[in-house]
């Protein structure tokens, strides 16, 4: 199993190189060149050339790529054009904030989805099943930024119960595990969890329903197993399919939602990307994209490894 995980890790190297190539190309795909973004339009040509030489833009592209890759691998992602702070620090802070929100939303969405989906699949009355199907349909259909605004209007503007924006109380820096910070998390967590809730509930419901119709469930009943024990068998069978969907949803959440983080002014990666796009802050864009892509790959790897652990039929070859 460990060997399998290690081999999969090695397979990630070419993928990671591909990603880095794309991220590098970002600079050259964008209209204009990076130098014209930082110098005034009327700068003399000698200054521009000097800058190009200073930043290495006069070298051929492959050389530029290798140099950039070498520097990036040491953890140096460059300096933000917008703030002048190192990209690594900016991205790390934003990423930490997004992760906190993503974990909360993931826990909320997945636990609720497993309970609702299982209940619907087991439901003897059609009403329960219909109700859950309706909830999951709403989850995937309602625009989550709209829901976010509605939540703010109800709970912050009308009821005044929860803070409408920010990561914590004013003039507090960073995130801490305390009441005021948790209160700030409630609304963004809910808004962020609706899509994964809908998607995962639907998957759990249909997977479990299919498994319940299988012969081995009848065979388990025929040998006198308790309902709880049968549920254990069913859940383990449903796990690989559900985990695959959960992995993708968790990946989306870690990517951070530009819309949700913008509505709640949550200083995460989505928020950072949004401002970087408007400021044409290429180093930030590159750094964030690279880190996110890396995390997405690791998450997929984790899901694959867990799947092979749960389902012996998946070949470890």
């Amino acid at each position: 199993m460990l060997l399998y995980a290690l081999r999969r890790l090695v397979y990630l190297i070419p993928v990671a190189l591909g990603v880095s190539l794309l991220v590098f190309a970002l600079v050259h795909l964008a209209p204009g060149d990076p130098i014209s973004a930082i110098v005034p339009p009327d700068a003399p040509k000698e200054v521009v050339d000097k800058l190009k030489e200073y930043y290495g833009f006069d070298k051929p592209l492959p050389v530029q790529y290798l140099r950039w890759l070498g520097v990036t691998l040491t953890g140096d992602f460059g300096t933000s054009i917008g703030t002048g702070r190192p990209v690594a620090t900016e991205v790390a802070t934003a990423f930490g904030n997004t992760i906190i929100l993503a974990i909360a939303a993931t826990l909320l969405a997945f636990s609720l989805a497993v309970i609702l989906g299982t209940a619907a699949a087991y439901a003897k009355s059609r009403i329960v099943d219909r109700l859950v199907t309706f909830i999951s349909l709403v989850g995937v259909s309602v625009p989550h930024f709209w829901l976010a605004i509605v939540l703010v209007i109800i709970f912050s503007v009308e009821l005044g119960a929860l803070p409408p924006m920010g990561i914590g109380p004013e003039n507090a820096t960073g995130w801490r595990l305390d009441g005021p910070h948790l209160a700030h998390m409630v609304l963004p967590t809910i808004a962020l969890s609706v899509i994964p809730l809908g998607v995962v509930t639907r998957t759990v419901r249909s997977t479990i329903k299919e498994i319940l119709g299988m012969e081995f469930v009848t065979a388990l009943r025929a040998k006198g197993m308790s309902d709880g024990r049968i549920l254990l068998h069913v859940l383990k069978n449903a796990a690989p399919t559900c985990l695959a969907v959960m992995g993708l949803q968790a990946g989306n959440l870690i990517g951070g939602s530009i819309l949700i983080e913008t509505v709640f002014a949550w200083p995460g990666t989505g928020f950072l990307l949004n401002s970087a796009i408007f400021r044409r802050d290429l180093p930030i864009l590159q750094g964030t994209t690279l880190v996110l892509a890396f995390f997405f790959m690791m998450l997929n790897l984790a899901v694959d490894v867990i799947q092979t652990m749960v389902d012996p039929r998946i070949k470890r070859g």
Partner: protein
Amino acid sequence: MSNLLEVRDLCVTFVTPDRTVHAVNGMSFDLRRGETLGILGESGSGKSVTLRSILRLHPERRTRWSGSIRLEGDEVLEMGPRALSDLRGGRVAMIFQEPATAFDPVFTIGQQIAETIRRHTGKSDTDAWRRARELLELVRIPSPAQRLKAYPHEMSGGMRQRAMIALALSCNPSLLLADEPTTALDATVQIQVLLLVRELQREFDLGVIFVTHDIGVAVEVSDRIGVMYAGKIIEMAPVAEMVDAPQHPYSRGLLASTVHGGMRGQRLEAIPGAPPDLATAPTACSFAPRCRFAEARCTAAPPPLAAVAEGHQVRCVLAA
């Protein structure tokens, strides 16, 4: 001598909002301890439904039962959930048609046998695994210790069915229900499994109900054979008599439609028509529409069960 199992006037009806199916319509039979009863019938004749009713495996919400199923004097149709789950896998065990789908694919064979032993005997995990290993030896699975750690997909069809038999015998049942256990297997493996079932049945003095549509298989394993049609037993006789002197036109047709050596070039005799739709409960002889000998009285009322010899009963007006 008291009977192990007594089934009386069993009717099983499935009711869904869309339609109703009268799957079993008045089954009555007895099974002695240590006896093997073969139930022969084509698809949809209600043989599997009857078998599964003995464990009450059908969804409670959509199934209507009437009549009586008594196991060693206990009424199965009136059992509470606790008694029922003690019965299942404990006093009555079942082997399924397709061992590939009857085992949970993500648990090992050993886990699945051991959990059954733990459930019914209260043995410790270690003792349950030791017993599981003995059982695999009993059904002659080579290198049993390794096989316990195997997943169902890592075994061959015949091996899986042996493991299924080991699972069924794990808690010393007095009644074994076999639902076409050889249908999904290769011919050579079929015979091995049949011989194994017969041998174990004798060794443990098991009552066995063996459901099949294969006449050869039924003749091979059974002491008595009951032929089912449209949810009823239409003829019941000891094996030799069923083979030599079947009385009911359907039994005769069924036995005539088998293929055996020395028939090359001859036209195979088939029964014309198809089994009846069971949306309504039959009010007359269900076979009459396909019967060559049908008369007016066949469609007027259900034919009575007539005894034509010791232990040989036929549900046909011609035999009465």
